[in-house]
């Protein structure tokens, strides 16, 4: 296996892990499968595109064309995607969590509401912006490094490092902050959490906003390689959901392991000459189905043996 393939696989894995981790955490703490994640992804992409287009002349006029201007641009793209994602999370909280979270069949209802939200938002984006793809400014600049005869593009390296950093930060937040402790408690036993004064209403808002913000980061990073479009969120949503299932819903370590497995599987299948890109989805889903037949709880059951 050459290094280029590994880099490509890690690039896919880091984006998938960003999506899958929070789908998994959201399910086990708030009890919601958030189908509107794809809409959040697309909306954040458009927000980044709009804001960066609006700020481009301002930044060019103030800072010229140097490194500072590029850094400002990168900040504008990432910042607007994160803010837009977090706002989407707050909207999902208001529409798909608050009104129904103590009603019977809440999980199914919220699934349907978020699915409807997803379809509505995607159609709205399609109606307003049209189907044309939009390119985001390159956050990490153009160019490549040479490493042992392999060329690594800046955006690939940036995506892997950026996603890794964001994931470490969120995991550290979960591990060391008081709010993170509350989220973990709620993931493990909702009744015990309630008896410890941890309310689901109060915890769901930051969790949903963080999920949205991470979808925003994923959107800004993925749009370095693909384009922003109304349906850009569909594939990441489907991949994120299936990887969260593969990892075992509720297991963070399982989600990361699943993302790495799927990233490498896709990269390898895509590189095999007689299979190629058209068999990537087929291979991915066959693999996930196979794993779930033998481990219905996903691979997370292996890593996280302390869950009941």
């Amino acid at each position: 296996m050459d290094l280029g393939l590994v880099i490509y696989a890690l690039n896919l894995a880091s984006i998938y892990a960003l999506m899958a981790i929070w789908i998994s955490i959201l399910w086990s703490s708030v009890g919601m499968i958030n189908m509107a994640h794809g809409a959040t992804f697309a909306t954040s992409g458009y927000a980044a595109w709009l804001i960066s287009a609006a700020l481009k002349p301002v930044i060019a006029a103030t800072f010229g064309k140097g490194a500072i201007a590029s850094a400002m641009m990168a900040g504008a793209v990432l910042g607007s995607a994160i803010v837009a994602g977090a706002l989407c999370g707050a909207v999902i909280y208001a529409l798909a969590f608050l009104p129904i979270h103590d009603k019977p069949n809440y999980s199914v209802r919220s699934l349907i509401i978020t699915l409807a939200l997803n379809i509505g938002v995607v159609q709205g984006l399609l109606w307003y912006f049209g189907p044309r793809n939009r390119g985001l400014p390159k956050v990490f600049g153009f160019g490549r490094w040479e490493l042992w005869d392999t060329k690594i593009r800046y955006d690939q390296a940036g995506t892997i490092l950026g996603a890794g950093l964001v994931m470490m930060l969120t995991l550290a937040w979960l591990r060391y902050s008081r709010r993170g402790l509350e989220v973990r408690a709620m993931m493990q036993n909702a009744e015990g959490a309630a008896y410890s004064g941890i309310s689901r209403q109060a915890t769901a808002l930051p969790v949903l906003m963080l999920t949205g913000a991470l979808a925003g980061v994923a959107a800004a990073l993925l749009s370095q390689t693909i384009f922003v479009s109304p349906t850009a969120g569909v594939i990441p949503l489907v991949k994120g959901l299936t990887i969260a299932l593969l990892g075992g819903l509720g297991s963070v370590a399982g989600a990361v392991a699943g993302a790495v497995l799927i990233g490498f599987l896709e990269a390898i299948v895509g590189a095999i000459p007689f299979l190629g890109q058209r068999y990537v989805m087929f291979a991915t889903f066959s693999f996930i189905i196979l794993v779930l037949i033998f481990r219905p709880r996903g691979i997370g059951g292996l890593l996280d043996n302390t869950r009941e």
Partner: protein
Amino acid sequence: MPELLQINKLSAGYGPLRVLHEIDLSVKEGERIGLVGLNGHGKTTLFRAITHMTGWQQGSIKLDGEEIGGSRSLGAGRRTAELVKKGIGVAPQGDAIFPGLSVRKHLECGAHTKSAWRNRRERIEEIFEVFPPLRNLQHSLVGKLSGGERRMVSVGRMLMSEARLYLIDEPSLGLAPKISQRVMEALWALPVSGAMIIAEQNISLLTGRADRILGMHAGRMRGDIGHVELN
């Protein structure tokens, strides 16, 4: 002594099932009450109704004069965290532990009030004084502890808050007699300023220690059944 908890005509249940039938109960500040009854006669449901965990309920529950009851048919658990913050500490049946958290993190979870969180280190030390075995286990995952140790963690978590009313549901359930005796000894020795209600099937663990022992049968209170001499 002023009334801390005043329950009037409380009925509660799950769906079409009515478990509690118009219960009246009042608890004074500083009282330690034993609640005795067989399995399925409503002890747990009474605790769950006080914290709004039942399917539906009606009737008045006053905590320190403030109405926390009322009628509702939906929203089980919606207000539980809020009521806990008003000063109700619960050690539920089955412990409701967080299996993937360490003993120490677990106890920190219980320190939900501002001042309890600020003083959590001192409070954890106090819990270790009450349950000495927990000190050596403080970094172990609770999911890997034995039943008795889990019970100590669950009661410890309840004690971390600065509650005024403690509800402890069957502390001896599933424990070996020697260990349940030890857990009960620790409970009676607790430096609790507010009131405490301990639900228990085994009356011998309550007798001689509780201020009052109340009976419960078929969802109704049987009044003070007094201390029973057991040989």
